[in-house]
């Protein structure tokens, strides 16, 4: 028998704390696979955020630090500046990066920090029970938009890769999705380019991964992935928004 796929060793044996069907596990596996393929595992420090993935260090076996809510990009900057040989990744949710952490993320990008941000967008604050996030869609019901998000009260969802691509510091900015095997294969390709941008010292990199939250969306995992295709991707399209030379 020929081995086609094997769970990476960098994923620990520990059962994840994520809800059934939560795509965090998919993103974790892609990161672990890439770190092994690019021979970066022993150099890597991952900055884990406040959110469901705060315990990510139990699942991906690299050095790790935990950041205060929203501050991962600043902590990553501190690590990378102090110890440039390290390979520094932050793993942040939409509340963590686009709400409380937007200043730190924008400035890390503008400075061209040689860090890679994996930005998980599932349209709500998962850990705390499903409140509105900057990426919540118009009309979407959350626990703090019980009547559906209204632009006149809560403004419009934020498009992070599009905003960041306008800066000069980033070397690679993209958006991918985790809803189907095809999109997952594509997401891994985009993540590889982001990691290459850092490994080749080209600049800041960020990949948004459109993800699901079956529990707070009040759907089955299969329905949640379907919602990504039907409702989320039309607002947050897959694409590469900045690709510097040397990233391919």
């Amino acid at each position, binding site marked *: 028998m*020929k*081995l086609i796929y094997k*769970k990476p060793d960098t994923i620990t044996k520990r059962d994840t704390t*994520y809800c*059934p*069907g939560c*795509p965090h596990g998919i993103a974790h596996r892609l990161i672990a696979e890439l770190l092994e393929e690019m021979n970066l595992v022993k150099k890597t420090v991952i900055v884990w955020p406040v959110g469901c993935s705060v315990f990510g260090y139990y699942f991906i076996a690299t050095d790790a630090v935990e950041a205060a809510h929203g501050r991962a990009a600043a902590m990553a900057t501190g690590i990378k500046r102090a110890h440039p040989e390290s390979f520094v990744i932050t793993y942040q949710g939409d509340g963590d990066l686009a709400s409380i952490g937007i200043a730190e993320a924008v400035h890390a990008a503008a400075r061209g920090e040689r860090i890679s941000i994996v930005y998980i967008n599932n349209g709500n604050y998962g850990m705390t029970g499903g409140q509105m996030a900057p990426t919540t869609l118009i009309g979407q019901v959350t626990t703090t938009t019980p009547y559906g998000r209204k632009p006149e009260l809560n403004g419009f969802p934020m498009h992070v890769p599009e905003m960041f691509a306008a800066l000069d510091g980033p070397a690679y900015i993209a958006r991918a999705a985790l809803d189907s095997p095809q999109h*997952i294969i594509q997401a891994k390709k985009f993540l590889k380019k982001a990691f290459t941008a850092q490994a080749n010292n080209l600049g800041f990199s960020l990949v948004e991964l459109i993800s699901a939250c079956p529990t707070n969306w009040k759907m*089955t995992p299969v329905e949640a*992935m379907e919602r990504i295709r039907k409702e989320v991707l039309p607002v947050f399209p897959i694409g590469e928004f900045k690709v510097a030379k040397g990233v391919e």
Partner: protein
Amino acid sequence: MEKKVIINEERCKSCGLCVSVCPKHVLRISDRINSKGYHPAELFDNEGCISCGFCYLICPDMAIQEVRRPEPVKK
């Protein structure tokens, strides 16, 4: 024939994603219960499996640990 898909039933949370993406419909949720109380997914038609790996790609719990393809018989 050896199993083409190795599933660690203890990690499975019965999310159903693997079943939903399998193009040959060789996966299903079993009646067994794992120690967490979930019904794990199972490969019930090894012959029909084409080793595409879609189940591995989408499994969020890394319960699907390996996908293998039989070597073609050399003539």
